[in-house]
């Protein structure tokens, strides 16, 4: 009995190494930063609202065995293009927000389909490929938005176009839809404003994910995630299902980006989506998810822990060493380090399982004398 308990504890520590590490770092840095609980609570609520939808978009590809979908950046770009159009047409309020989401759908489906097809051609290297694909599409995005818009694609509003006559400006003011979802059903706890409507939307997404897992498509994806060969043998169209998982993820990423930007209120046309992919993935991993297993709880915990660390690092660095810059570099380092550790743990575990399976297979094949 005791050995089993000890095994369980070790297993718990192993699977949750990253979040535990994070809690330790935060416990250490929090008092150093000097922020009040009320301020941090406010910040956490804001960041949950902003980022949770995006992080949840990553769950489906992990379920389907595609690993970390760095290609969610493509969905983010689709969302941004939707926002550019509604800003140009001057659609305000919730109408603008939902219209931007609807506009992003066809683009997200197209990009997600393309991404899925490319990933199917790079089986075994999905993560690197989706990572590079993100960079590549960034180039295409710039081609369209910095050169195409205003010249080939008609943009009526002059305020968002660069002075040279074509290309969208670096910062687009989303004053029309700013906080429109957040302020729809405001509830105040103390001095903190809680955007109930946005949380409701996020809750709907969670329900959708839970429901989806139970559908046939969801079951298929889980089967592929566990063992592609077995799934293929059971008659599942592996290639098509994988593409569908990426498409859904990309569409959700598009919606998430719209929610993210309506909270901030301004869109950095060329930079907003870059970090979004990396931070969402880092947050998910911090919440205890791994490359092949992720739950909703991971997403929520991850966003809280990751962004908490993000907020307190600069001040903690300043109070510790005297340079806020150190804290800022520290949080960049931690973000990348977290992804590195998770990737390494996943790869080691996979290799160990493979060796174990190989040994088991060899044992089973031993011919008795």
């Amino acid at each position: 009995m005791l050995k089993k308990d000890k095994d369980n504890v070790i297993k718990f520590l192993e699977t949750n190494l990253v979040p535990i590490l994070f809690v330790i770092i935060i416990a250490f840095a929090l008092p150093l930063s000097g922020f009040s609980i009320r301020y941090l609570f406010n910040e956490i609520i804001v960041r949950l609202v902003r980022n949770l939808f995006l992080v949840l978009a990553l769950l489906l590809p992990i379920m389907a065995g595609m690993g970390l979908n760095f290609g969610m950046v493509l969905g983010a770009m689709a969302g941004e293009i939707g926002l550019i159009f509604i800003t140009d047409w001057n659609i305000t309020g919730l109408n603008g927000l939902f219209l931007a989401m609807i506009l992003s759908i066809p683009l997200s489906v197209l990009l997600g389909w393309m991404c899925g097809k490319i990933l199917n051609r790079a089986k075994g290297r999905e993560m690197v490929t989706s990572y590079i694909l993100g960079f590549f599409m960034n180039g295409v995005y710039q081609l369209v938005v910095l050169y195409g818009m205003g010249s080939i694609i008609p943009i009526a509003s002059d305020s968002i176009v660069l002075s040279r006559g074509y290309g969208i400006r670096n910062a687009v003011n989303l004053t029309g839809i700013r906080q429109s979802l957040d302020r729809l059903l405001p509830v105040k706890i103390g001095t903190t404003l809680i955007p109930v409507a946005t949380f409701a939307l996020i809750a709907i997404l969670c329900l959708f994910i839970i429901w989806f897992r139970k559908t046939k498509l969801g079951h298929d994806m889980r089967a592929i995630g566990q063992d592609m060969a077995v799934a293929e043998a059971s008659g599942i169209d592996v290639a098509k299902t994988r593409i569908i998982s990426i498409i859904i993820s990309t569409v959700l990423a598009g919606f998430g980006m719209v929610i993210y930007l309506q909270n901030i209120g301004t869109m950095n046309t060329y930079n907003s989506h870059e970090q979004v992919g990396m931070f969402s993935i880092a947050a998910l991993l911090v919440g205890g998810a791994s490359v092949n297993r992720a739950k909703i709880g991971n997403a929520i915990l991850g966003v809280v822990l990751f962004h908490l660390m993000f907020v307190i690092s600069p001040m903690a660095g300043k109070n510790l060493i005297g340079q806020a810059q150190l804290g800022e570099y520290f949080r960049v380092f931690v973000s990348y380090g977290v992804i590195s550790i998770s990737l390494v743990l996943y790869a080691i575990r996979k290799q160990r399982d493979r060796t174990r399976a190989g040994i088991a297979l060899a044992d089973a094949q031993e011919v008795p004398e």
Partner: protein
Amino acid sequence: MTFLNRIIEKTGWPRLIIALFLLSLFIMAPFAEVKIGTSLSDTLIRFGMNGIMVLAMVPMIHSGCGLNFGLPLGIIAGLLGATITIELGATGTSSFFIALLLATPFALVFGWGYGNLLNRVKGNEMMIATYVGFSSVAFMCMMWLLLPFSSPTMVWGYEGVGLRTTISVEGFYLHALSNIFAVRIGTFLLPTGMLLFMGFICFLVWAFLHTKTGTAMTAVGSNPVFARASGVNIDRMRTISVMLSTWLGAVGIIVYQQSFGFIQLYMGPFYMAFPAVAAILIGGASVNKASIMNVLIGAFLFQGILTMTPSVMNSIIQMDMSEVIRIIVSNGMILYALTRVKKGAH
């Protein structure tokens, strides 16, 4: 006709398109009032600057570790060598070689650790390489602030704590190589010294690959079963390849700096692996096969495009699309290589 088809199949469409694109840029140059002399020498200079970092890809491709996205680790070793050289106050041409000397132990140690890590994660090398590279750059960002450097040319003015983001190598080894045997014909400047040095290093690598260890390394990548059967320690070979690759990265960045004129710290090395990866892929390499020829062709084509596009296209189209083209070309090339199914995959 089938001969042409065979060439197309062997080179692959993206490479053909890129080569033709570069050729057309050179042809258009005189019409865009761009001097071919300057363009050619600019291309050659950038070719020499980046060539060794592209070469750094070769050992790891040979040993089956894939494309070395973790090149920043080697670059950091080089940066450490460079900064310590300046801290010690060495100047002149010899400072270049001192920097190389100082960078080497760092490169070997980093490479050894990095190689061992990659051995534990066979099959996922490229993704982990990328993030190990990023994490180490971010880590060094903190270190550059904290390490006890004191040389006035390198440290922030007022407080005197922490290194500056960009450090000039003027007075140290600026153009140390390029100026050796430099040839000038009108507007055309040939950085003979740098090219000779690069050629020398390429030769060293080529020779190494033909030694017993080198061939063992290649065997590990192309036919691991045969290698193990011949008694080769696969993990050891892989680690050696990573160490060599990291060292080449260190050498490469120092050569780059002597031509560029500056040491770029902090986030400088962050994305530096990608152009090198793209270049060797453009030159004909794949994820598991690379030759020195690939390095030379690829570096030349890639740098040629980077040099010619801004000048030529700006004059003709009146639009500066060079940055966007660079992103699309380099990442598109890497994508193409990643999606090619290898024949006889294990």
